[in-house]
């Protein structure tokens, strides 16, 4: 069923809000300052409830089914975390209520920083960045500030092709030029490639480990040594932390600064695109550069510290996404150290199980043990287009992804990482059961069969969703961004 746009349902005079009773005199502002009421829709309460209930029914969330979106860690978002964040003492807290009257929030933040540090083996952390890319930016700002403090700014930064997409954009915000290098044949970075470009005008390197192929960068220590030897720093993109909690401590293998995605590894909901939270952990040498305010503990009480002369400054109006932190903190406490290690272990088991189960069906460009995700592509299906009975139909990764919708699954990440042509990137996460994974495997196999036998089914997929494939070209050429 269709649901009209809000203003198409609007009728003059309706109001879905309970207006507070006015108990003081009306105070009239000068007419030159006030305008007409903004043209918002006018609806009854039931209209609003039905509108958004209907909209929600067109969405697919983790609660709706498996969401094997590579690089995004769509694990289960525990409901108890929502209960914690909604407590009046947190949700109603004013950021300027004063430290004395905000000890609970401060303690939570202090503890969360400590836990993140202990999980990763770093020395200090900030929770302030509002999302992963914001954390990345904070990290690069600290590298920038470090070099500035050391007297000589540098102009470049190394970004391998297997790093996350936001990396170059974050680097350029600090004026760094990205130096792209290619990973080796087996999908991991070779020290030689780094040594070839690393020089004393290069601020450092941005590494995603495990990388976006789902492979562990096993040469990371050598690479870090090369970078450090030239005075550079190693930035670690922690988006893939879900593979290595309790297995590897990035702070102890040569990485100097690392951002987290609380909305990936630490189970907070993605919310259809945010809010996230992107804390950053650093080694001792970078601690002076952390953004302010910092949370510090003194005896048994907590306070904000702003007196940090070398800080990169402030990144958020207040202290970051506290509501998201509460959820992540609750998750960490619910899991405990052993639980976090179990989560990573089972995430890796799930991914390897899928990799082994599907490698006969889809092409696997890098056939080696993967971490928490694995990357296939459509090479087999592309080949098939010439040998098959209906040579004119070219089945692509996109077609298979869209067809998965008809099977009740969210599609994997496609055409990323760029290093694999037609990439089909699957990250099951640890919260998916074997049965759900088996169903996913069966669905992919059955789609691969359709690709040969009924390719039209795929070309016109999805068939069961509210809309079919959208005209994205016209959307971008003649943008219609409001109604």
């Amino acid at each position, binding site marked *: 069923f269709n649901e009209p*746009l809000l203003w198409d349902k609007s009728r003059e005079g*309706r109001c879905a*809000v*309970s*207006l*507070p009773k006015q108990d003081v005199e*009306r*105070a009239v502002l000068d007419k030159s300052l006030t305008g007409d*009421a903004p043209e*918002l829709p006018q609806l009854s309460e039931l209209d*609003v409830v039905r*509108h*958004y209930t209907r909209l*929600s029914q*067109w*969405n*697919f*969330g*983790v*609660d709706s089914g498996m969401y094997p*979106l590579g690089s995004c860690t769509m694990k289960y978002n525990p409901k108890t975390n929502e209960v*914690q964040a*909604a*407590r009046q*003492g*947190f949700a*109603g*807290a*004013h950021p*300027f209520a*004063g430290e004395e009257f905000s000890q609970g929030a401060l303690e939570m933040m202090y503890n969360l920083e400590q836990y993140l540090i202990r999980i990763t083996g770093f020395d200090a952390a900030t929770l302030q960045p509002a999302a992963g*890319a914001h954390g990345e930016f904070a990290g690069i700002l600290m590298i920038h500030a470090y070099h500035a403090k050391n007297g000589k700014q540098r102009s470049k930064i190394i970004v391998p092709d297997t790093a996350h997409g*936001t990396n170059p*954009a974050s680097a350029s915000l600090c004026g760094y030029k990205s130096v792209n290098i290619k990973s080796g044949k087996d999908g991991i970075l070779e020290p030689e490639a780094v040594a070839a470009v690393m020089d004393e005008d290069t601020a450092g390197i941005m590494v995603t480990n495990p990388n976006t192929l789902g492979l562990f960068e096993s040469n990371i220590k050598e690479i870090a040594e090369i970078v450090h030897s030239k005075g550079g720093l190693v930035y670690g993109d922690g988006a893939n932390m879900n593979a290595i909690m*309790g297995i*590897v401590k990035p702070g102890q*293998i040569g990485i100097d600064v690392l951002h987290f995605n609380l909305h990936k590894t630490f189970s907070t*909901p993605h919310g*259809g695109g*945010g*809010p996230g939270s992107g804390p950053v952990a650093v080694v001792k040498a970078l601690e002076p550069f952390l953004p302010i305010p910092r949370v510090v503990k003194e005896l048994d009480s907590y306070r904000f510290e702003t007196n940090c002369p070398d800080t990169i400054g402030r990144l*958020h*109006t207040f202290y970051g996404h*506290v*509501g998201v932190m*509460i959820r992540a903190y609750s998750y960490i*406490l619910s*899991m405990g*150290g052993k639980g976090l290690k179990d989560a990573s272990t089972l995430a890796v088991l799930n991914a390897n199980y899928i990799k082994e189960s599907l490698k006969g069906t889809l092409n696997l460009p890098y056939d080696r043990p993967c971490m928490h995700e694995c990357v296939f592509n459509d090479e087999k299906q592309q080949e098939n287009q010439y040998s098959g009975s209906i040579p004119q139909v070219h089945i692509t990764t996109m077609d298979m992804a869209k067809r998965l*919708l008809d099977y009740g699954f969210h*599609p994997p990440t496609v055409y990323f990482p760029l290093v694999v042509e037609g990439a089909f990137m699957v990250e099951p996460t640890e*919260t998916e*059961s*074997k049965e759900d994974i088996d169903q996913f495997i069966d669905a992919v196999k059955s789609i691969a069969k359709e690709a040969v036998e009924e390719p039209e089914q795929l070309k016109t997929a999805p068939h069961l969703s*509210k*809309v*079919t494939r*959208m005209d994205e070209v016209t*959307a971008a050429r003649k943008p219609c*961004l409001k109604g």
Partner: protein
Amino acid sequence: MRYLPHTKEDIESMLKVTGNSSLDDLFDCIPDNLRTKDKIDIPESLSEWELNTHMEALASANIACKNYKCFIGAGSYDHYIPAIVPYLISRSEFMTAYTPYQPEISQGTLQGIYEFQTMVTRLLGMDIATASHYDCGTALAESALIALKKNKKTKKIAVSSLVHPSHRQIVHTYLAPAGYEMVEISYTKEGLTDITAIEAMGDLAGIAVQSPNFFGNIEDLSAFKAIADAKKGLFIVSFTEAMAYGLLKSPGSFGADLVAGEGQSLGIPKSFGGPGLGLLAGTKKQMRNLPGRFVGKTKDTNGKDGFVLTLATREQHIRREKASSNICSNNGLNAMTAGIYLATVGKIGIQEIAQQNHDKAQYMKNSLLKSGFEPGFNSPFFNEFVLKAPKGFEQKRSAMIQDSCIFAGLNLETFYPELKQHYLFCATETISKDDIDQLAKEVQ
């Protein structure tokens, strides 16, 4: 662990498929010297019930656990949130979905954000609005970058000293490494941005003014538009209190090129300052310069209307280092929340609620003046205003927090050292006449 579905049998049979003999073997691809030997040194797992106890204890260590009377705004406002707003937004189809890259199964988020974008443009009188940003401060910093990138003649931007102090700090953080300069515009005795100070600043890529400003006063935006035009810089308007535009003339009506605002007032809890909601709007001309996501309307292969993320060519994952911004996750769920809130209050509600905010603030100001305060400034204001306190007020204020859970204003000296004994007060529709009368009595 209830989040981990793997039974012993599952693990065994899956390991067999992967060709590993133990879970540990899965990590053989990681060199031994990189693997940690230690356990993660954090507390043992808590049961759901222990977690409840622990978290309630923490929440209770914040004064907000009580029914405290908060006469403070300064970027975080206490407004009524209708019960349907948290109810609807908590539906898991909204909450647990990813960024709507797959439009076929994301029409809910997409239509909702499209409607949000539309309502934001109507609230602010602008042509377009993005699908959200982190908060006003970061949205303002991005706006400054847009202005600076566009104007190659100068590396300088002017920002009013009555822009929220944190926002100015953020702008500085964003601008400094790229070699840009932010100059502050001083303020007048009326508590307004001193337009005469701008003349002498030479070329400017943009002028950023907050209205209502940090003191709560309403700026004369038309004057700043004129001078921005004269300097060929972009005119950027910011605000921390979105509710104001239920009543005030919109920034768009004064010709703002870019608007960066905080949307926390629109149905989002204060939550110790975050997550809030960065609003970012612009004229049509700025469409391809604005960072972040847009939802656009288009048609599917059957000619049916639908919505998609669009203009992605501006974004970091396509343009990489050439992107205008690195923003990826935004504050989507809060944008949806604000959309629900705006649809709920509607045209009638937002104007009435905004008016009530002003009414209460005016009543409170009058009451405090009667109680011995002196006016800080004499400009028109929305729901915040500055007063100079009588002697001994700071001690009284502390006592009131302890004894009556009343937060009587924010000491401005922290932010403006010259404003000794000046306090910033705020009243919203949640404050009753009785609350104000009590405050006026207790401060005496």
